[in-house]
């Protein structure tokens, strides 16, 4: 012991960073900077709005009152002093919003607009806004007004910061009940979607039913259309003139019922992808063991299948929940009187231009989304690989009755999904529902309607193509740097957090945040405002997370040995990146790009605030046409988006097959 204590302390071991390490760090820093500029800073600009409050500061104004002759003036007196004497306004009355006004005549009990008395008003500080009529004044100069004009003087509120907006929000029962509604809708939709999607995924992976390929295609269809399209279809089916109205037994489709059905439709493929992946990984040996232990099928299902798929189920549940709670297209189209959080943001911002309250609702909306996200991350961390080298992939055995039941279930879901798309197609071709049922292409004459016409469609194509190319490059490079960099724990964790954040941000919040951040003249990035660039940036950012996760999954499959080998052969990392990493990950890269493309075609919520003259978009046109009540043209434009996305997917499938056969030969022994 004594000898050991006498030994000199060894040199501290530090990881030496080579030039590759520095270049990787530089790349990561660039992409992190991108995420900060395109996500963190705009969000900060938006959320800080929620603390901006408005109130009337009476001490900023002074008045002088003349005698009846209008020539002899009394002493100047501050509005605050007058209010103290009269006790006219309490602190509650002095709180306001950006559009608030306070009539000054309230401070003069003997005011009469017919009297010959004259009044003077001035501000005592630089910022003392008031209105004469509707003309904004802001000056420390006295302004003289006759009594008839003085009647039209209103004070304007000034800004302070504080929690007042939150207090107001939580004390307003109408706004507060939206939280309840949002949670209710999201929960019901999540339970149903996960249940339905599980059944579908189970049939695809664990049965020998026929037509699996067809069902897989049908199930993916909802991802190709804007989320408000099912709303339109539901109105045609179950609205007051709907041809299936009888099926509702007097219930109305406008409200929670419609939102839930529509939500199940548009979240179904998202849940299906995740659950199907979870079910596709399973070990035949576990089932054999269960069988030899004479476990019943039912018991095997609950003790082998469900535990194996539980992480996928949880993940699917959270994705669905977040999608439903942040969507505003559906509740707007078919929500009727049912207020949800996303609609409240719309009402506050678009209806009343109350950005501060809109920001408060955004923060409230962030909470469930962020919680869902954190819980999901925690659960994912616990996941261990189910497959080892000795696993035997599960092979379903034919079982006539079971296969038929599965087929029936898939057929029901397939009819539901294809039916909704079919109704939209029907709606787009009908002349004037329900009074003129002749077919025509009139609804495709977009240039006669709201929303930018055919130009909007071409813009959308351009946006989708740019987003697919640029977005994929940024996302994949970012994921590579995070995954393959040595050391640098904190930086990687921070990057990871930034990359996961967009999932929890409602698009509308992102869109408004972009206005506040990018339209600031002091911002050096200001020139991109109003251009296609800002649309691409917002779309890439909005859909960053899923692309990032896909890229990470693919990168994790590549053996970590490649890097050390390349480095010992003195090969720079970019050669490895170009020669090995990218070719190996090509299927994932194609998946990311098609995901970006499809979503750029359908997204509405963020870009609705950002498009300008030359950059109107097809998806926004769907929203605007529906808004103006042009439902059939909205359906027609929605179908244009569908055709485009379907074509893109077919091309993607063909390209994938060719590339796979050329670059992925190593996957097969």
């Amino acid at each position, binding site marked *: 012991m004594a000898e050991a204590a006498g030994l000199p302390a060894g040199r501290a071991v530090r990881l030496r960073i080579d030039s590759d390490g520095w270049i990787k760090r530089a790349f990561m820093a660039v992409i992190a900077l991108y995420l900060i500029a395109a996500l963190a800073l705009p969000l900060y600009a938006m959320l800080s709005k929620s603390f901006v409050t408005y109130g009337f500061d009476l001490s900023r104004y002074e008045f002088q009152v003349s005698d009846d002759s209008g020539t002899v003036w009394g002493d100047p007196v501050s509005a605050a002093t007058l209010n103290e004497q009269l006790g006219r306004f309490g602190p509650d009355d002095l709180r*306001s*919003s950006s*559009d*608030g*006004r306070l009539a000054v005549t309230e401070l003069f009990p003997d005011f009469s607009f017919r009297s010959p008395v004259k009044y003077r008003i001035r501000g005592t500080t630089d910022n003392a806004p008031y*209105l004469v*009529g*509707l*003309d*904004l004044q*802001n000056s420390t100069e006295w302004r003289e007004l006759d009594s008839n004009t003085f009647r*039209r003087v209103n004070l304007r509120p000034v800004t302070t910061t504080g929690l007042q907006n939150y207090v107001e929000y939580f004390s307003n*029962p*109408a706004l507060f*009940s939206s939280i*309840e*509604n949002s949670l209710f809708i999201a929960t019901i939709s999540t339970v149903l979607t996960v249940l339905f999607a599980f059944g579908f995924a189970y049939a695809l992976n664990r049965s020998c039913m026929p037509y699996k390929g067809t069902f897989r295609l049908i199930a993916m269809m909802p991802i190709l259309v804007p989320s408000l399209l099912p709303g339109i279809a539901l109105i045609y089916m179950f609205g*007051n*003139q709907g041809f299936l109205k009888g099926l509702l037994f007097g219930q109305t489709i406008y409200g*929670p019922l419609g939102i839930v059905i529509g939500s199940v439709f548009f979240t179904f493929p998202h849940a299906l992808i995740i659950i199907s992946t979870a079910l596709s990984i399973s070990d035949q040996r576990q089932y054999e063991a269960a069988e030899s232990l004479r476990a019943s099928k039912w018991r095997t299902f609950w003790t082998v299948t469900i535990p194996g798929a539980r992480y996928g189920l949880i993940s699917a549940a959270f994705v669905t929940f977040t999608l439903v709670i942040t969507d505003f297209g559906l509740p*707007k189209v078919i929500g*009727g*009187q*049912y*207020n949800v959080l996303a*609609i409240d943001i*719309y*009402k506050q911002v*678009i*209806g*009343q*231009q109350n*950005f501060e309250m809109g920001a408060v609702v955004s923060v409230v909306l962030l909470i469930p989304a962020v919680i869902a996200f954190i819980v999901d991350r925690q659960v994912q961390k616990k996941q261990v690989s189910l497959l080892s080298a000795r696993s035997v992939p599960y092979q379903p055995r034919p079982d006539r009755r079971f296969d038929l039941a599965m087929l029936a279930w898939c057929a029901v879901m397939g009819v539901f999904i294809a039916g909704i798309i079919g109704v939209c197609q029907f709606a787009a071709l009908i002349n*004037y*529902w*329900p*009074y*003129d049922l002749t077919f025509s292409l009139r609804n495709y004459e977009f240039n*006669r*309607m*709201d*929303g*930018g*016409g055919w130009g909007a469609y071409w813009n959308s194509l351009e946006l989708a193509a740019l987003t697919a190319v640029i977005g994929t490059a940024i996302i994949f490079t970012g994921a590579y740097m995070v995954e393959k960099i040595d050391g640098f724990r904190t930086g990687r964790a921070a990057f990871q957090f930034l990359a996961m954040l967009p999932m929890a941000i409602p698009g509308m919040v992102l869109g*408004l945040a972009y*206005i506040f951040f990018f*339209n*600031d003249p002091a911002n050096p990035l*200001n020139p991109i*405002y109003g251009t296609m660039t800002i649309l691409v940036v917002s779309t890439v950012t909005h859909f960053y997370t899923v692309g990032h996760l896909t890229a990470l999954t693919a990168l994790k499959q590549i053996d970590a040995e490649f890097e050390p080998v390349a480095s010992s052969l003195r090969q720079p990392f970019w050669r490895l990146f170009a020669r090995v990493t990218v070719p190996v990950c090509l299927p994932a890269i194609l998946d990311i790009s098609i995901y970006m493309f499809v979503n750029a075609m359908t997204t509405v919520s963020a870009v*609705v*605030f950002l498009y*300008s*003259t*030359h950059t109107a978009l097809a998806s926004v046109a769907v929203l605007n046409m529906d*808004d*103006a*009540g*042009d*439902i059939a043209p909205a359906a027609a434009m929605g179908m244009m988006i569908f055709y485009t996305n379907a074509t893109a997917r077919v091309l993607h499938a063909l390209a994938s097959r060719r590339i796979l056969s050329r670059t992925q030969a190593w996957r097969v022994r």
Partner: protein
Amino acid sequence: MTTSKLLTLGALALALGTTAVRAQTELTVYTAIEAEDLERYAATFNEDHPDIKVNWVRDSTGVITAKLLAEKNNPQADVIWGLAATSLLVLKTEGMLEPYAPAGLDALDPKFRDSDTPPSWVGMDAWVAAICYNTVEGEKLGLTPPTSWADLTKPEYAGHVVMPNPASSGTGFLDVSSWLQMMGEEGGWAYMDALHNNIAAYTHSGSKPCKMAAAGETVMGVSFAFRGAKEKAAGAPVEIIIPEEGIGWDMEATAIVAGTDSPEAAQALVDWSITQKAMEMYNVGYAVVGIPGIAKPVEHFPANIPEKMIDNDFEWAANNREAILAEWSKRYDAKSEPKG
């Protein structure tokens, strides 16, 4: 690259450059007018001003107003041509409009201009509230069409009336503010209490109630006459009813955005926006325009619209908007909430 190629490129760049110099002044114009009218308006304007190119940014009234306010510190628009006067009043109180007295101002009906001198905005045309009534669905249910606002509260209409939500639609606010002005504060709220019992839905868009009536989704929708006329022209079985008590109205108006880079072109556009030619252009879709005596009757529009328009106090409406909406939400938003 060879020298000759470079030279060609250079010449091309030069040619492009010179056309850019000679090119027209471009104006970014924010608007809420109907999409199908955009091209016609710009083309008619260009007949007289071929040197000014109009770049439209069009959206619904609420979105455009929100956009303008959000861009307050760095306005992108040069001119606002065709936005509700009530929205322009909001912008005016924020000091965002450049006062300007356009040529020919005297010809305008005094109702159709900002009362300050020089005015911050000038009116184009008026859109008036109206009830769209679906005769086919009404007959199926054995209803008789209403003739007044008071009729809308009749018990047999329960669940057959749709109106826009004033908290999200300008048309909705127009209706509410006109009822309060016509019936007085107390009478107005009492009326809305009664009406609320009959309302099937409050929509987020002002034209939607009429569209819904046209499509038979509801029997009657409180909307505006322009929408009803469009639907009727498209073949819908709707009647446009002008309630006998009088109707609220708003106007589409034009204003220069303070701080525009092209003040001369902006002024030229505003000058032109109140010429006789412009008024005739508006008259294609709108029955009431800014210069009296020009308007010809428009197909499907009831003839008595001008005399039924109330004496709308825009300043009162603007100053009380916040309080009215707060009261409205308190009364009907919380109450109408279906419990999940």
